């Protein structure tokens, strides 16, 4: 079978899954919907492997295959078709997406079993995977934007999955609107490019641009900057990141799948997919790299002080995507995609493990209340350690190789990029600190009551289920989120999913070890034949210097966390007091929410209220309507003699006037 036939099948299964699960929404017994959903995505993964094999069977020069189903929006010069592009980049992405998604579906079958929205959850989750696969397989800008918006919609539906919580619905609309800003960026960017190329298809665009643009042409830079707006909104980069921490309102597997492993990395995919444009617009690429670097530092610094365990991981996600964005913009395409993959493994793993510990805490997410879970939850602890070491870039874990692939490239690239590389190293230090701060606080120290209970074989239950964010009592009559919590230690599907991811987090690095092998870059290279930057890799020696230095930096971070939280407990409190202003600043997340509130939200509401109260009532109601009715009334008052109904009079006046004018013209004409 051709790669594109596999590609269409990859899309078909999640579509069928979502449709079948929704169609039987009130009939599926027990966990059937969950297994159906998992099966659909697993089949999609199988087809992704099929696409991979089929693509590898082709000559490297012919590994970009396009297939069209039907015309979607073909008119007046726009050539939007329902078409997919199967090339090494998209195959790499569908493998990662469908693979990780399968495992998270499997995990969810257990994790969500007590939830009354079980079936709805899997319908949404299948729809999400479909959207994400559309996004990465799209063969033109229009379909890319469709996938782009679909993942946003799926993300919205899953963030406000527990829709009785006002915090969840608020977070949902926030995420959706910021993502619409990103969509607008993509659409406008497409306009700027389309204006010159006259096509929305990727391959045609890439073959055109060298004829219609020069390096840093205004419209090209504008278009690329707008694409970056889309990438920043989706990938939670500063200043469009504020929705991601709030998105943790969704069920934990959702955070794992959408807000860590797949959707939020779409911005990285976008830059890599559009690399011919960005290479021709180095100014825009530099902006992307700088923002990525700023995000990785800002998010890391916030991660140091946040106490909600899911939000620590969320800020860590932002920070790691900062690395990927920086790498993709700098030209480290295989490094960025490789880090995307390893990050999907270890971050999904960390979220799953966090879900397990939250289950043990009966829904509480605060690090302030967790401690000493090491003995009570050995498996979860192990997963946290594997994920944490991979995240901190410690050898031989996968993050070690992939992170340094990005950092090493920036030093080698020259220009402003080495400065950003220093930022990356600083980020590695912070990463070690916040990751192990979280692990030390949750798993070491004196066991919390819940941990003690668990050691005696009882899973803690909250007397009154409360919203972890507000402390508000949950609306239990609707039954979700369920009163039952689960932990990985007792559920084999969760254990299997986490074990496989842990394996990936542990060992995936070996496939791209400088000087040893380079599976990823060899596989990707046919998609980068025209790229100057792709083959601009640092030498093996230089790469190894980085591979030694960066983990040392990460270790320093871990040791610092050890000193603060284990060796000298209480010293973190003293440090907080000594650096109170800094702590307040970080604790308030650099005041980005407040800034957006003042700059965007409040003015918009003000304009709306002004429009309603002042303009609408006075200008339109009083001025225009009053003027029109007033003048008609004045005319009619002159005409009227008897007490006839107003309306009849207006009608008569109008008809009379009309006839007079019509008559006038007829006379003039004859």
């Amino acid at each position: 079978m051709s790669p594109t036939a596999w590609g269409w099948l990859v899309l078909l299964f999640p579509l069928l899954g979502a449709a079948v699960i929704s169609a039987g929404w009130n009939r599926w017994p027990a966990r059937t919907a969950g297994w159906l959903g998992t099966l659909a995505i697993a089949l999609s993964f199988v087809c992704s492997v099929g696409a991979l094999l089929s693509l590898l069977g082709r000559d490297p020069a012919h590994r970009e295959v396009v297939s069209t189903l039907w015309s979607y929006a073909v008119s007046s010069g726009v050539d939007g078709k329902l078409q997919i592009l199967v090339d090494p980049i998209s195959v790499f992405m569908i493998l990662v997406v469908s693979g990780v998604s399968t495992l998270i579906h499997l995990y969810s079958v257990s994790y969500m079993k007590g939830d009354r929205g079980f079936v709805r959850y899997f319908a949404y989750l299948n729809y999400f995977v479909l959207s994400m696969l559309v996004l990465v397989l799209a063969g033109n800008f229009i379909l890319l934007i469709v996938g782009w918006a679909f993942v946003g919609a799926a993300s919205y539906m899953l963030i406000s999955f527990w829709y009785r919580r006002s915090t969840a619905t608020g977070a949902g609309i926030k995420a959706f609107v910021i993502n619409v800003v990103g969509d607008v960026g993509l659409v406008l960017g497409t306009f700027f490019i389309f204006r010159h190329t006259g096509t929305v298809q990727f391959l045609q665009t890439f073959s055109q641009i060298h004829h219609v643009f020069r390096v840093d042409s205004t419209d090209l830079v504008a278009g690329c900057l707008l694409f970056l707006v889309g990438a920043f909104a989706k990938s939670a980069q500063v200043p469009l990141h504020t929705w991601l921490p709030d998105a943790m309102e969704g069920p934990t597997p959702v955070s794992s799948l959408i807000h860590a492993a797949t959707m939020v990395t779409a911005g990285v995919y976008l830059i890599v997919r559009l690399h011919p444009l960005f290479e021709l617009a180095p100014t825009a690429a530099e902006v992307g790299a700088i923002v990525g670097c700023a995000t990785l530092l800002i998010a890391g610094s916030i991660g140091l002080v946040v106490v909600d365990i899911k939000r620590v991981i969320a800020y860590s996600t932002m920070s790691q995507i900062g690395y990927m964005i920086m790498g993709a913009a700098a030209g480290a395409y295989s490094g960025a995609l490789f880090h995307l993959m390893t990050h999907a493994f270890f971050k999904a793993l960390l979220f799953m493990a966090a879900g397990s510990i939250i289950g043990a805490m009966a829904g509480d997410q605060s690090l302030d209340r967790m401690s000493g879970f090491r003995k009570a939850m050995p498996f979860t602890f192990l997963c946290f350690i594997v994920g944490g070491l991979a995240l901190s870039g410690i050898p031989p874990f996968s993050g070690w190789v992939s992170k340094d692939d990005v950092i090493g490239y920036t030093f080698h690239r020259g220009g402003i990029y080495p400065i950003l590389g220093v930022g990356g190293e600083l980020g590695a230090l912070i990463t070690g600190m916040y990751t192990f701060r979280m692990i030390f606080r949750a798993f070491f120290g004196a066991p919390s009551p819940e941990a003690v209970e668990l050691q005696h074989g009882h899973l803690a239950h909250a007397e009154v289920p409360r919203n972890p964010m507000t402390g508000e009592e949950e609306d239990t009559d609707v039954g979700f989120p369920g009163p039952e919590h689960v932990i990985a230690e007792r559920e084999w599907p969760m254990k299997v999913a986490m074990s496989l991811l842990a394996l990936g987090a542990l060992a995936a690095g070996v496939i791209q070890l400088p000087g040893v092998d380079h599976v990823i870059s060899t596989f990707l290279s046919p998609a980068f034949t025209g790229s100057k930057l792709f083959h601009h890799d640092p030498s093996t020696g230089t790469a190894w210097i980085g591979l030694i230095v960066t983990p040392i930096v990460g270790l320093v971070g871990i040791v610092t966390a050890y000193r603060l939280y284990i060796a000298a407990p209480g010293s973190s409190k003293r440090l907080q007091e000594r650096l109170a202003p800094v702590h307040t600043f970080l604790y308030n997340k650099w005041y980005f929410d407040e800034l957006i509130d003042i700059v965007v939200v409040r003015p918009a509401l003000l304009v709306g209220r002004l429009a309603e109260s002042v303009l609408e009532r006075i200008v339109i109601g009083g001025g225009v309507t009053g003027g029109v009715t007033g003048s008609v009334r004045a005319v009619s008052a002159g005409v009227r003699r008897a007490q006839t109904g107003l309306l009849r009079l207006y009608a008569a006046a109008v008809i009379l006037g009309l006839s007079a004018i019509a008559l006038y013209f007829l006379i003039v004409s004859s």
Partner: protein
Amino acid sequence: MTLSILIWLPLALAFIGAQLDEPWVGRFTAVTSLAPLGIAIDYMVRFKSGAGGLQFVQDHVWIGSLGIHYKLALDGLNMTLVLLTTVLFSLSLFWSAARSEIERPRMYYFWFGLAESAVLGAFCAQDVILFVAFFDLMLVPFYFLVGAWGTGERRRATIKMVIYTMVGSFLMLVAAVAAGVLASNQNGTPIEFTLSALSHLHLSHTSQDWLFLCFAAAFLVKMPLVPLHGWLADAYKSMPIPALAVFSGLLSKVAAYGFLKIAIPLFPYAARHYQTLMLLIALVSILWATALAFTTADSRLVIAYSSVAQLAFITLGIFSLRPEGAQGALLQMVNHGIVTAGAFFVVAALAARCGGSEKLADMGGIAFRAPVLASLFLIVAFATLAMPGSANFIGEFMILLGVFKAQLAISVIAFLGVIGAAVYALRLFITSMHNRVGRGVASPGEVKLAEAVAIVPLVIVILVLAFYPQFVLTRSQASSRVALAPAAAVAVAGSASATTASVHP
């Protein structure tokens, strides 16, 4: 078969229906309304997509001495709109027939029949005077539907609506008559009112300017766009929901269609001359209506103002005077008709669960007891905000692309309306469906057959068009190019003269 049968059949059926016993009128009218729908589908099947000219022409001299013809035809501009008309009327009638509480059903359904005939007539008319006649005839049934079956401040609503529309119509009639007369004077030809004849005659620039403005006034009132929308809030609040679905879904479309079919082809110079003005009116309308939609506390008005914003997008597309924009506008007309009607039916279903209240503050948390209704509403809400993947997105994409090429800045600012739509559509969905149960929610049951009968078909159409918006684009392509050709020629001539001017200062 002629187009006359399609146009007058609804009225004839309404006459027959009015003779039946009261309990049967609704069912009879609803079921027989499938006949015009079937005829429209038949025309759609026989319609030749590639041709830009008129098809199925029926041409009789009406008033010979004045050159007025009774001329009907279909082309790419009105084909899908005619189909849309029969669909929306059918669904509104089924929705009405599923409710027994309608008073004086004979008259009620009679006005619906008349309304459908008038709208179909306005879409099919190929003579300016005939168009004006149908355009004014459209107002009559709605005047009675608001006045007699409306709620709330219906008297004030009817007065405002009638005055606004009458002033507009009056200006249009004057302009229509004048167009024929002036054309015959300036060209020395016998007086003619058919569009095909008028479009070949030359009109002086001054005449074009004021004639265009008169037509524009009538159309802008009917849509309505800012600042001529003063009648909208009251009229929309009072109108019974089925009437509102067709009123908002179709009558506003007649106005937008009028720009494309009459004002621009007949007055190409003026269309070019006032292009920026029209674009600015549309832009202001988008921002204004969006701001109102996300502050209003009334669920029905959210949809009403969103409707204004979308009509403004359509106007924006038309006055880009580019094929992309016009194509987008035509697609968006169909989309907007379906989505707005669907949204109004959903609002009615919400109000039915909140003891009749349409206030957002009374709503909330309905989704739990009505998951199917919530899913249907979510699809409608996503289509309303033109989420990519809906046909509405393709409409807006092409509209904004057209404007982008014509006036970059206006297009960029108009995107604010796209973002605003996300806010107000989701706000409406969340405040009614999610969060805790609202204080006014009395009977939060699942969607009933009487509601599904209109909402489900519309959602199906939304989904089908989402997969295949090309359906509309293919049919309108040739005709929209023909409609814009004169205005495009003006632009070419304009830039040519500008070049000559720069060469010979």
